[in-house]
């Protein structure tokens, strides 16, 4: 194949399955225009068979492209199509949180992160499906139904949630970047199931203004890319103080791409024994151990560390109580009085009752009941306050690990993606520990990243790396080394 033929073949392949830097270079070289890119992404989105999208913003995207400021051409995101999870408020673009209660809601303002993306020249081409109001981990509970895993042509495996549509869009090669949110592991878990890099920085590092709240104290803006460099670069854009979010940090924003290729000699990494012990999948353990060997080769010091199993098993129930309690209050504004899918009634009480009864699925109502129950005066000490105390103990235990270690490294899930129709044993160690431990990073607000480490039955699985608050630079540096070791980057599921 002569070079020009190869170039032509590449062009036919399109750009949306490439990395951000690759696409950016192509724009700078004049190989492709933002309009070409947006058309490509929208075509791909329209052909999507994984139920990844709530709304494809074709008209809005074409309009945005025509208004691009070419003086911003050097911005990495200039003209690059992106997808936004449907729980980020987007001005003039319907935003439902994949819940019927918000059918027809068109926000009048954009989330801070969406504004930042657009200021950098990114073009929002679609809003992605999610588990209803981000409460779920399977990608099966949104009002548009099941979102499928692009790696599985049989459509029997989950893609994971709650950021299912964003994960599907990036792993299917429709866009190189998608915003998600992570309250328990809602980006980092689907990243594992879809061969993506899923990253949530420190709580407060990125403004939450405009993100529909699920559980405020655990909610993080997070996102998917297909390699560690792109993740680091995106943090440069998204991080920073926002006066509209009182919890956003004043800490200086670093250049997170600057130290990616630093040597990691002497870096101390902890592997949590009970998490490994609870995993039975040999392929996962073997790929994980291979990545550990590579880290050791690169000079990292790896120790297997004990964290009290009781605390690890307490992560999930603690998470459930706190998240449901906060969720029931956070979603109390959805009452049909001011906006949303109002169902009329004889009195305001009836309007609220009808709207909420019709608008939320039974799963959501179940969470609200758990949340309200644990906040009731007679239960609050026993449930909500106790869960908060337990959270403190869990965070203390991990802080203790972080006193000696730069990062904690474990498989992100006990296996490849579960079956859509599968059932899990909710009381097994594997479920309670390996399947749900990643919420510790939400409880402590730690920066945490998942990246692919292997495949089994042609389905991917990943590992998770977590560091101390505001140590994103160290975290991304180690993650990059793991990525070098596995060679698993820029992975895209074969299109149908």
């Amino acid at each position: 194949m002569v070079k020009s033929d190869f170039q032509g073949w590449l062009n036919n392949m399109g750009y949306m399955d490439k990395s951000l830097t690759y696409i950016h270079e192509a724009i700078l070289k004049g190989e492709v225009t933002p309009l070409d890119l947006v058309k490509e992404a929208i075509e791909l989105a329209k052909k999507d068979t994984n139920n990844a999208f709530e709304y494809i913003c074709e008209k809005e995207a074409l309009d945005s492209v025509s208004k691009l400021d070419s003086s911003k051409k050097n911005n990495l995101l200039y003209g690059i199509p992106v997808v936004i999870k449907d729980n980020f408020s987007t001005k003039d673009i319907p935003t439902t949180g994949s819940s019927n209660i918000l059918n027809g809601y068109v926000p009048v303002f954009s989330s801070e992160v969406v504004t930042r993306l657009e200021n950098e020249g990114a073009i929002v081409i679609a809003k992605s499906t999610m588990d209803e109001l981000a409460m779920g981990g399977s990608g099966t509970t949104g009002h548009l139904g099941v979102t499928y895993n692009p790696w599985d042509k049989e459509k029997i495996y989950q893609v994971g949630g709650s950021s299912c549509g964003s994960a599907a869009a990036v792993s299917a090669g429709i866009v190189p970047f998608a915003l998600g949110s992570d309250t328990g592991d809602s980006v980092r878990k689907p990243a594992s199931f879809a061969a993506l890099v899923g990253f949530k920085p420190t709580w407060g590092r990125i403004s939450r203004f405009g993100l529909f709240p699920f559980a405020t104290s655990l909610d993080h803006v997070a996102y998917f890319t297909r390699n560690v460099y792109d993740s680091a670069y995106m943090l440069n854009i998204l991080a920073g103080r926002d006066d509209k979010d009182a919890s956003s940090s004043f800490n200086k924003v670093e250049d997170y791409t600057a130290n990616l290729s630093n040597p990691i000699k002497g870096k101390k990494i902890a592997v949590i024994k009970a998490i490994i012990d609870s995993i039975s999948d040999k392929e996962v353990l073997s790929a994980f151990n291979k990545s550990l060997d590579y880290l050791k080769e690169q000079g990292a010091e790896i120790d297997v560390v004990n964290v009290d199993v009781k605390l690890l098993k307490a992560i999930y129930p603690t998470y459930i109580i706190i998240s449901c309690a906060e969720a029931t209050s956070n979603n109390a504004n959805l009452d049909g009085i001011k906006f949303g899918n109002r169902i009329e009634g004889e009195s305001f009480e009836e309007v609220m009752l009808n709207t909420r009864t019709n608008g939320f699925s039974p799963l959501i109502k179940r969470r609200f009941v758990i949340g309200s129950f644990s906040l009731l005066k007679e239960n609050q000490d026993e449930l909500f306050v106790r869960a908060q105390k337990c959270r403190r103990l869990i965070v203390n235990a991990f802080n203790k690990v972080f006193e000696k270690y730069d990062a904690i490294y474990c498989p992100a899930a006990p296996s490849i993606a579960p079956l859509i129709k599968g059932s899990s044993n909710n009381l097994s160690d594997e479920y309670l520990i390996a399947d749900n431990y990643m919420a510790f990073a939400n409880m402590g607000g730690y920066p945490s990243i998942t990246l692919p480490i292997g495949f089994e039955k042609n389905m991917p699985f990943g590992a998770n790396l977590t560091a101390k608050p505001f140590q994103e630079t160290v975290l991304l540096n180690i993650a990059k080394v793991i990525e070098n070791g596995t060679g698993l980057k820029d992975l895209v599921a074969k299109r149908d």
Partner: protein
Amino acid sequence: MELEAVIGLEIHVEMKTKSKMFSSGPVSFGDDPNTNVNVVDMAFPGILPTVNKQAVINAIRVSHALNMKICDLVTFERKNYFYSDLPKGYQITQQFHPIGSDGFLTIKTSSGEKKIGIERLHMEEDTCKQLHSWDFSLLDYNRAGIPLIEIVSRPEMRSGEEAAKYVEKIRSIVTFLDVSDGKMEEGSLRCDVNISLREKGSTKFGTKVEIKNLNSLANIQKAIDFEISRQSIILEFGGQIEQETRRFDEGSKETVLMRVKTDAVDYKYFTDPNIAPIQLSKEFIEDAIKTSPELAESKLVRYRELGLNEYDSSLLIADKDVSVYFDEGLKSGCSAKLLTNWVIGDVQSYLNKEGISIKEFHVSSLELGKLISLIEKGDVSNKQARDVFAEMIKSHKDASTLIKEMGLSQVSDESELISVIKEVIDANPQSAVDYKAGKDRAIGFIVGQVMKKTQGKANPALANKLILEEINRR
């Protein structure tokens, strides 16, 4: 059986900050409905609260004025309940750690001074305003999110008079501190009364009734007095008081039943995770107090030191705007006593006649002070000054310009006066002789002639003195 009333008050004060308690939406009163609203006030999905710093400063100042302990860790809780006036489905308030606690204030009643304990003072946000019609309700979100201070007294008041005095004092404090305009009739100061009766000397509490919608000091007193007698009659006849909420009906001057209280609502309070606890530094608190506007009580002390009597001083501090007007006028350097007389006399009667407030009065107190200084110097007489003042109101011109234009300035220049006096005595030698012979009346004639020659502008006192000197010299 001798009964005594046990009365506690909950007062909500709307702050007049520039923006709302947790949003940048503007605070403004009397505008068209739903014009001072942003997405935060409407609780659109994804909004977040940010704490209004001035509101915290205000709360510190009021807490300090009420002799309260100030909590240096500011936290906010969510009070969760569903209601049509509540945009978020919860109200952000301070349940667990109110910024002010355990204070008191001293009131003066017809039976002497009394210290009233204050349990707590906390910050919260107002709900939206509702207008209910028979088949629909209107919601005005302008009010949603306006910063409120809630002040909860201990149940230590015993009469309508005490309660009214207590509210009056609180109103004075919040208005003098520039925290609120304190207008009960417009709802910027709202008062709920909790009242029960018990046998005198008992330490147990009776069943309590809540009275709402009290929009004036007089109504607070009337409502409580009525409620005391209503409950007394029930108890005297062996009846029982129902736990209920009543409102005061202005027409009948009675309290009427609104609703019977059922079990208390469980508000499921928990700390708002969007607002990390704010640690106030010692300097911040001290600075808020140090830069606090002057309270009525301290103005009173200052006025007494200026030599004003108690009655005049109390008239000046009865209305914060009047005292501010007065203080501004003092800067002209004029006599405090004269300024007081003008402010509580001429100025006030003009305002009364026009039915306007002193804030709407266009003659600045500095200009008034200058006019008073001219009286003191003897440049104009009192009577002339009144004419000038009337002209100042009409023409918007300043005093000295008007005095010139009206040709009113008195001749107080001695050499000018002496030459006129000499002329007059030279022309009327007999009068001087008569005076020396003991005819006191003769002096009047000479004064009259001097006034005539100066077209009434001679300073009468000075002229009198100079005439006598001149006659005695001859």
